[in-house]
C-alpha cells in the first residue's frame, strides 16, 4: 500500500512540483495518474519509489514512512519497488540480459538463480529471443519492454511506471498497457502515469488527475 499525506516537493531552485497531494493506493490496486506534462506526475511516482524525498508531508510505502529511512534503507526499498523510467535508463554498453540482471547483481543473487529470473522476466515481456541484443539494436517499444523486464525481475509487489506508453504508437501502447493489466491481475500494485486520457480510460482502473501539483479530480 502506498499513502501520500499532503506530500509536497519543492526542487532546489524553487520549482514546486507537488503542492500537497493526499492519495492512497491499496494493496493490489491499479491506479493511473493523468495530467499534462508538468502537472507533477513524475515527481509523485518518484516519491513513491523512494527516488526523491518529499520536502513536506509524508509518504508511506508498505507501512514505512520514507522520511524516516536513511539513504541505505531507501536504496534497499527501491529493490522492492519496480520502476519503469520514462527515459528507460538502460545501460548502452551491455546487452539486454545484463541490463535486466543489474538489480539482481546489486542485491547479490546467486548467478544461476539470477539467470533464471532474468530469462523469466525477458520471456514475460516477449524479449527472450533477444537477450544478447544491445539496447541500440532494439526498437523504442522493445527498449520500453526491456525496462519493464528490469523493473519486474526482483518480483516486486509494487510496480510504478512513468509514461510507459509515451513515445509509442497506438498498437504498441495497447500491448504495453495489457502487460501492466496482467501484472495487476496477479496481485501486483500498479501505479502508472500517462498524459493520454483515452488509454487510461481503456485500462478500466481508478484514475487520478493531477494539475499544477494538486489532485484535480478522480474517476471513477
Amino acid at each position, binding site marked *: 500500500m502506498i499513502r501520500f499525506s499532503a506530500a509536497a516537493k519543492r526542487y532546489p531552485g524553487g520549482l514546486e512540483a507537488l503542492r500537497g497531494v493526499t492519495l492512497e493506493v491499496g494493496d493490489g490496486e491499479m491506479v493511473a495518474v493523468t495530467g499534462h506534462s508538468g502537472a507533477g506526475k513524475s515527481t509523485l511516482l518518484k516519491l513513491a519509489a523512494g*527516488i526523491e524525498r518529499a520536502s513536506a508531508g509524508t509518504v508511506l510505502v508498505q507501512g514505512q514512512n520514507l522520511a524516516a529511512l536513511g*539513504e*541505505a534503507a531507501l*536504496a*534497499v*526499498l*527501491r*529493490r522492492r519497488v519496480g*520502476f519503469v*523510467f520514462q527515459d528507460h*535508463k*538502460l*545501460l548502452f*554498453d551491455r546487452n539486454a540480459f545484463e541490463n535486466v540482471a*543489474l*538489480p539482481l*547483481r*546489486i*542485491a*547479490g543473487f*546467486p548467478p544461476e538463480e539470477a539467470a533464471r529470473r532474468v530469462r523469466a522476466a525477458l520471456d514475460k515481456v516477449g524479449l527472450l529471443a533477444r537477450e544478447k541484443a544491445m539496447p541500440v539494436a532494439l526498437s523504442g517499444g522493445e527498449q520500453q519492454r526491456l525496462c519493464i523486464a*528490469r523493473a519486474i525481475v*526482483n518480483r516486486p509487489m509494487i510496480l510504478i511506471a512513468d509514461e510507459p506508453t509515451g513515445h509509442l504508437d497506438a498498437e504498441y501502447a495497447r500491448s504495453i498497457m495489457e502487460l501492466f493489466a496482467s501484472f495487476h491481475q496477479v496481485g501486483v500494485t500498479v501505479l502508472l502515469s500517462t498524459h493520454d486520457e483515452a488509454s487510461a480510460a481503456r485500462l478500466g482502473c481508478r484514475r487520478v488527475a493531477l494539475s499544477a501539483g494538486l489532485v484535480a479530480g478522480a474517476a471513477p
Partner: protein
Amino acid sequence: MRLWLRLHALAFGDALRRLAAQPVASLLSILVLGVAIAIPVVAAVVLETVGATTAGFDTDPHVNVFLSLDASDSDAKRVGEALRAEPGVAAVRFIPKAQALAELQATTHLADLLSSFDRNPLPDAYAVRLRATDPARIGALKAAWSRLPKVDQVVADFEWAERLGRWARFGRRLVLGMAALLAAAVAFIVAHLIRLQVVTRREEIQVSELVGATAADVRRPFLYHGLLQGLLAAAAALALAAGFAAWIDAEVLALTPQYAPELKVAFLSPLERLAVVAGASLLGLAGAWAAVSRELRRFSSGG
C-alpha cells in the same frame, strides 16, 4: 554472511574485469606505481646491505694497543696495569694472541694462509674502551701508551667507523622521507585513476542507485580496483627490486676484500616483503576510497 561474501566476490570479479578490460592502460599504471614503490625498496636494500656490513664495526671510542711479538706474559701484565691506572679508561680487555688467531681463522678466508705459518704471526693486544671522546685527549693517551715498554702500536680507528655510522643513520632517514613522499604519490596516482573510472561509469552508477544500489554497493568494486592496483604494483616493485639486487650482487661480491667477512646483498625479509605488499594495497584502497567518496558526493549534489 553468505550474501556478504557473494557481494564481495561479485565486486572483486568486477574489479578484475575492469583491470582486464583495458590491459595496456592497467599494465602501464601498475608499472608506474610499481616504479614509485620500487625506488624506496631499492634504497632500503642498498642501505641494509651497507648496514649489515658495518654492523660488526665498533663505533664506541676505543683504542687497540698491540704489544711487540717478543713481549712476555709479565710484560703484557705490566702494560695492562699501566692502562688500567689511567682515569680516562672505562674498561680494558686482554686479547691473547692465540684467541686473536682463532677469531681471524673463523671469520675470514685467511684460514689456509694462517695455517701455513709455523708460528702465530699475531701479537697480544689490549682493547681499551675510553670514557673520553675529545680527540686531543685521545691523541695524548695514544702518544703516552706508545712509549710504554714492549708496546708496538696504538691504533684508534673508531673514528671512521663512527662517521660511517652517522652516514648510515642519515641514509636511513633519507630512505624514510623518500618512502613517505612516494607513498603519498602512490595514493594520489590511484585516486586519480579511480576518479577517471568513476567519471566514465557515471551513468552506470546512477542507474544502479535507481534500481537499489547503496553507496557501499557502488563503492565496493572501485575499492577492490584500487586495492588490486596497489597489490599488483607492490608485486611489480618487489620483482624490480629483486632483479636489481641480483644485478648488483655479483659486483658487491667482487668488492669483498680478501681479509673481510663476505659482503652480501641483504634483500628484504619475507616479513618486510609482506609489509610492502600490505602497505601498497592499503594505499591503493585509501586512494580509491577518497576518489569514490568525493565523486559520489559530487554526483548527488548534481555537479
